[in-house]
Each structure stands twice: as structure tokens, then as C-alpha cells.
């Protein structure tokens, strides 16, 4: 009798396990159907979805044999979602990649594209200029640049006029910038600059000083005098010169406040960020303009961008590459600027009238600032441990940014930690 009950229990459990496994299998096999459609994942919001879809529509119209299912994933979940897809053997055919690209390529999750590039006759240098080899890792190309724009200076024309100052230009030095910030600041009310607490901002100063975050041999070099000076300057603008709102002052302005929204509100007179701020500024009431970044010992500025890659799960990498080739060609890239989404990576489009005089731009907006900046973009180190490197900076600089401090002390700590992270 005992045994019988046990047997029944065993059988029941086995059946349950089987059913469970079947349910899991059903989940896993979900939408990677056999209809031959390519799955493409990108991050962003509504505008991004609309723009990518418009480009895909163009592609599908001209290549009837290619169909693409576009999946937009909210930016803050993108990495986790894609990681889970790939780990589950259900990776997308085409994925958007950025600074973190080499955490995938170093683990051979992306298909090297050199062969396809060669056979298609695509000239990376001609199409994308210096960013053509941005997504190479150990001499192999893992992604094709898709969007790529330098960080630029946004300035509030009315505030500059009121202070009787000339608008910023690429000829400005760090000293000129600081002098302007000081004149544009009205304590407790208005600030000259939105701040440089983000890597893209203060790293630009470091490279302007001739420093490097990761040196040419691949070792961290963050406590060099050049980098220390840059970080100290970026922080002193807030805590010594008071031309940038402190973290506390930003928090008082509202939740999730920072340079971008404060600039749009007319509270800070200058802000350094990427193309995406334009969308919000067109709607804002302020009178604004853009200029290339100022310089230090030399000119240097960071750039933001993303590329399109083919994952190892793709059943048809050839077709996926064909799609990417089309999406990064002139016709599809023009959509990016028409929709005011971003700077297209394609040089021909960047130099076209569609880019330099877009319909949506306010009169006199110097869109040439992006082209001008592209000459002195520094190459940020896209190491496989990018996320850990970012966390190391964030972890150690939290109090430093909030309360001020000594850059050398912090960077010495960071250097030691990075040395153990980067093998």
C-alpha cells in the first residue's frame, strides 16, 4: 500500500515535471518562427521606434525577400533582455550595440562581419570615415556604425546676450569656457554650465589635456596628472567656482533633474550633451544654439553612437548583413535626420543638405557643428569590461561629485580597482 502511494506520487511528479518542461519549451520556442523574418532589437522610446520602423519599411519595399520584426526594448532593460535572449539560444538576428559591444564580441556572441563586408564591396572608410572601425575587436569588425554624433555645446542665446558675451566656438579654451560660465552665473538662480559629471563630459576634458582612460597598451591610466586635472576641474566648477548647480541644488529643482532638463528650463546657460537634446529644445521656449566643444591643450570630444550587429543565433547572417548594409546606406540613413532622431553615421548623409538644413530646425541652427566636431572625436575605450569600469567610476565618485573632494585620491583608488578588473 505504502509503495503504491509512493509510486503514484512519483508518477504524478514525473508528469508534472514533464508538463513543466513542455511549458518551458513552449515559452522558449515562442516567436522565433520559421517564417524567415529577421528579428531586430533596438532600445529607446517612441521616436526611436518610429524611425527604425520607417527605415525598415524602406528596406522591405526595396527587398521583398527580407522581412524584419522590430522589437523596441526600453533602454534600461535592453542589456538584460538581450542577454537573456542570447543565453536562451533565442538571440535576435540584428541587434543595436554601443559602448558595451565588446562584452558580446569578446565572448563570440556576434558574427564577425569582415567577410560579408568584403563580398558586398562596402567601403567602411568611405561610408563612415574615422568611425568605420569603431566596432572592431581584435582586428575583426563586429558591427556597422549606424548612428554617430559628437557631444556638442548647447548655449542659451538670450542669457549670453544679456551677459554681453560672444557665443561659444570651437576656438574656445577651457579657460574661456570657465570665464564665460562665471559671467553667466547668478548665485542661487542661474548657472553658467550644466556640469560634467558624466563620463562623456569629463573624459572629453581628460583627452583634451592629453590624458587617456585606457592607454594604448590596454592598461588603465586614470591617475595620470592629465586625467586628475580634468576631473578636478570638472568638480571644481561645481564646488569651488559654483558655476554649476550642485547635486543638492539639482535635487531641489525636481526629481531626476540634471543638465539637460535644466538647460531646457533656461536655468543653466550652457550644456554639453548629444544630439538627442534637440528634440526637447525645439518644443521649449528658450532661444538656443549649438557649437562644437571647446578645447584644452588639444581638441577632443566624446561621441555617442550605436552600431548594428549580427548575433551568432542568426540563422541567416548573410541576409541580416544585407539588411544592415541597406539600413546604413544613404536612403535609409536620411530618415534618421528627417525624424530628428540622431546623427546618421553615414558621412554622405551628414554632409547632405537634408542634414545641414533639416525642416524641423530653428532658423540659423549650426548643424555643421557635428561635422566640425567629427574631426577631433577621441576614441573611447570600448573594453569588454565596460560596465564594470563604469560602475567603478560611479561607485567611487558618488560622494566626490555630491560634496567635492580631491580628484587624485579618488582616481588612485579607481586605478587600483580597474587594474584588478581589466585582465
Amino acid at each position, binding site marked *: *500500500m*505504502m*509503495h*503504491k502511494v509512493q*509510486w*503514484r506520487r512519483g508518477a*504524478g*511528479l514525473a*508528469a*508534472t*515535471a514533464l*508538463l*513543466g*518542461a513542455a*511549458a*518551458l519549451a513552449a515559452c522558449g520556442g515562442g516567436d522565433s518562427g520559421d517564417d524567415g523574418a529577421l528579428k531586430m532589437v533596438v532600445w529607446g522610446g517612441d521616436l526611436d521606434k518610429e524611425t527604425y520602423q520607417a527605415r525598415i519599411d524602406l528596406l522591405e519595399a526595396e527587398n521583398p525577400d527580407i522581412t524584419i520584426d522590430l522589437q523596441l526594448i526600453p533602454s534600461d532593460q535592453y*542589456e*538584460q533582455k538581450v*542577454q537573456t535572449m*542570447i*543565453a536562451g539560444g533565442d538571440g535576435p538576428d540584428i541587434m543595436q550595440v554601443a559602448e558595451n559591444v565588446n*562584452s*558580446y564580441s569578446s*565572448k*563570440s*556572441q556576434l558574427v564577425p562581419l569582415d567577410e560579408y563586408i568584403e563580398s558586398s564591396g562596402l567601403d567602411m572608410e568611405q561610408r563612415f570615415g574615422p568611425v568605420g572601425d569603431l566596432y572592431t575587436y581584435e582586428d575583426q569588425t563586429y558591427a556597422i556604425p549606424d548612428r554617430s554624433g559628437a557631444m556638442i555645446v548647447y548655449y542659451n542665446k538670450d542669457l549670453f546676450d544679456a551677459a554681453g558675451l560672444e557665443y561659444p566656438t570651437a576656438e574656445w579654451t577651457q579657460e574661456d569656457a570657465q570665464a564665460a560660465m562665471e559671467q553667466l552665473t547668478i548665485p542661487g538662480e542661474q548657472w553658467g554650465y550644466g556640469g560634467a*559629471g558624466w563620463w562623456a563630459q569629463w573624459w572629453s576634458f581628460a583627452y583634451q589635456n592629453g590624458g587617456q582612460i585606457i592607454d594604448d597598451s590596454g592598461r588603465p591610466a586614470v591617475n595620470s596628472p592629465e586625467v586628475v586635472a580634468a576631473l578636478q576641474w570638472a568638480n571644481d566648477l561645481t564646488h569651488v567656482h559654483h558655476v554649476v548647480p550642485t*547635486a*543638492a*541644488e539639482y*535635487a*531641489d529643482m*525636481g*526629481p*531626476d533633474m*540634471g543638465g539637460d532638463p535644466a538647460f531646457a528650463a533656461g536655468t543653466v546657460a550652457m550644456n554639453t550633451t548629444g544630439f538627442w537634446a534637440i528634440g526637447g529644445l525645439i518644443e521649449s521656449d528658450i532661444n538656443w544654439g549649438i557649437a562644437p566643444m571647446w578645447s584644452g591643450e588639444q581638441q577632443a570630444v566624446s561621441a555617442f553612437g550605436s552600431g548594428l550587429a549580427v548575433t551568432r543565433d542568426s540563422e541567416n547572417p548573410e541576409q541580416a548583413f544585407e539588411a544592415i548594409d541597406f539600413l546604413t546606406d544613404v536612403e535609409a540613413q536620411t530618415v534618421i535626420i528627417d525624424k530628428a532622431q540622431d546623427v546618421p553615421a553615414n558621412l554622405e548623409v551628414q554632409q547632405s543638405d537634408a542634414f545641414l538644413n533639416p525642416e524641423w530646425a530653428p532658423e540659423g541652427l549650426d548643424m555643421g557643428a557635428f561635422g566640425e566636431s567629427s574631426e577631433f572625436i577621441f576614441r573611447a575605450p570600448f573594453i569588454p*569590461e565596460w*560596465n*564594470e569600469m563604469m*560602475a567603478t567610476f*560611479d*561607485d*567611487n565618485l*558618488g*560622494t566626490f*561629485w*555630491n*560634496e567635492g573632494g580631491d580628484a587624485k585620491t579618488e582616481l588612485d583608488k579607481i586605478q587600483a580597482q580597474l587594474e584588478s578588473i581589466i585582465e
Partner: protein
Amino acid sequence: MSNVVVDEAPGAARETRGAGRRRPKMSGRRKKEALYFWLFISPWLIGFVGFLLGPMIASVYISLTEWDSFTPPEWVGLENYSRALTEDPIFWKALGNTFYFAAISVPLGLVVGVWLANLLNKRVRGRKLFRTFIYLPTLVPLVATAMVFKMVLAPSGPFNDLLGWFGIDGPQWLLSATWIKPALIILSVWGAGGATVLLLSAMNGIPRELYEAAEIDGASPWRQFWSVTFPQITPVIFFNLIMGLIGAFQIFSQVYILAPNNNVGGPDNASQMMVTLLFQEAFSFYHFGYASAIAWLLFIVILLFTVIAFRTARKWVFYETEVR
């Protein structure tokens, strides 16, 4: 049972009885009942085996490997555990932060919960309204709550204004390594209404006669609370303690949403908790093995505290049915 025995040959070895040589008959009703049992339990069982037990067993294995979730895992034995316990300063910091949070937020939440429940149990005008208000915070989605808290706890926000009236110079809360944990505790205590509702229903279940008897004996309201109300609600307090402990050790969303400048765990890892650390290691740094080891270490910690709570429960939790 008995008919099975009767069927057996008299000389058969007794020890093999029931070894399945014969399939004992089950009555039709019992069969049907068993079938229904498996049918109705199956949704839970499938979920449990497929989505909990399976992944749990897998994570034991993963915790003994180095795995980036893409390439095949590499066996490293107990290295992940020893690294967490001996080498990684952030692990200990996160564990300390989690203890700090749990040690204050759980008792504080219970005290506030009992206090509120006791107040709301008084016969006051508009008590239904008050009860609704107290429970309301638990219904607000956490993201919305955290947004409001970011404003309330701003350096010159309303909360610091309030402190200012009492001559206290409020700290920078979320921006300060010292004060971000107290800020998280305030956020958790704000949701004490959930416990209050349970405690209130327990208080309502206390027979009036006990209070009448106590009153006749001359017990003050204070004495009545400690000698009548409190012992009667200890089972619910105990339940809230266990749930609160488990919840506090697994704190995640609050840290994630309140993080200044999206630096989860910041500033300077002062708000880094076990689960946020685990999440970061697994999904941001691609160290699944290490993250699984942290998960199991957290499991042991929670288990330990739950066992302690259960062991000590005999001393202070009062079940009426167990009165000897």
C-alpha cells in the same frame, strides 16, 4: 488495508508485503479524488518544478562555476563563495547595509504598525476614513512613491523644511552616504499600513469579555494593551516579522528607483544591498556564477534569521488553542 492482507498467501514473507506484486485496489471514489488532487494541484506543481525548483537546482551548479551566460560555464568549485567571503569588500558592505536596513526597518515597521492599529481600533469619529488613509500608501505603485520621495527628501524639500521647524538642519538624504539608508527605512515604514490592516483584524477578533474582565480587575488602558491586546495579536506580529524579514533582506526596487543619478547602490555603495549587488553582478557584469553564489549566501542568511525567529517564537507568540 485489511483486504490486501487477506489476499496474501499465508506463507508469504511478511517483509515483501506491499512490494507491488499485486496492485491493491483503490475504491472508485478514492481514485477520482486522487485524480482531482493532481489536477487541481498541477498548476502550482508545474510552476514550482518548472520555474522554482529547476532554476534553484541549476543555480547551485552555476554558483560553482564561472559563467558569463554566453559561453559554457567553467567549473571553479567553491571559489565564488570564498571570493565573496574573503576578497570582495563590496559584498561585506552590501551585507552590512542589508543588515542595517533589516535590523531597523523591520522592528520599526512592526512598532509603527501595532501603534497605528491600536489607534485605529479606538472608537473615534471617521475611523473608517483613517483606516483607508493608512492603507492607501501600500496601494500606490512603488515607482510613483519613489518619485514623490525624491521630491520630499530633496535637500530643501518639504521633509527638511519640517525638520527645520524643530531647529534641525536636515541632511541631504539621498545624496549622502550616511543618510541614504535611513531614507530607505523611512520609505519602507511609510508602507506600514499593510501590516496595520492585518493587526487590526487580529485586534477585532479579541473577545470583548477579556477587556471587561480586565476593567473590573482595575487594569489601566496601558495594562490592558500589554496583558490582553498584545498577547492576542502576537501570532499576527510573528507573521509580519517573518514576512518583513524576508522582504527586507530582499530589498531591491526601492534602491533601484531612489538611486541618485541612476548609480544603483550609490553614493559610494552606501545603499548597495544584497539583491542589487546580485543583479548588477549577473546582468551588468556577466558574472552569473558569482551572482548565484551571492544568492545562496543570502538564502542562508535569510534561513538563519527565519529559524532564529521560529525558535524564539515559543517564548513570546501566544496561540489560544495551545493553552495548556
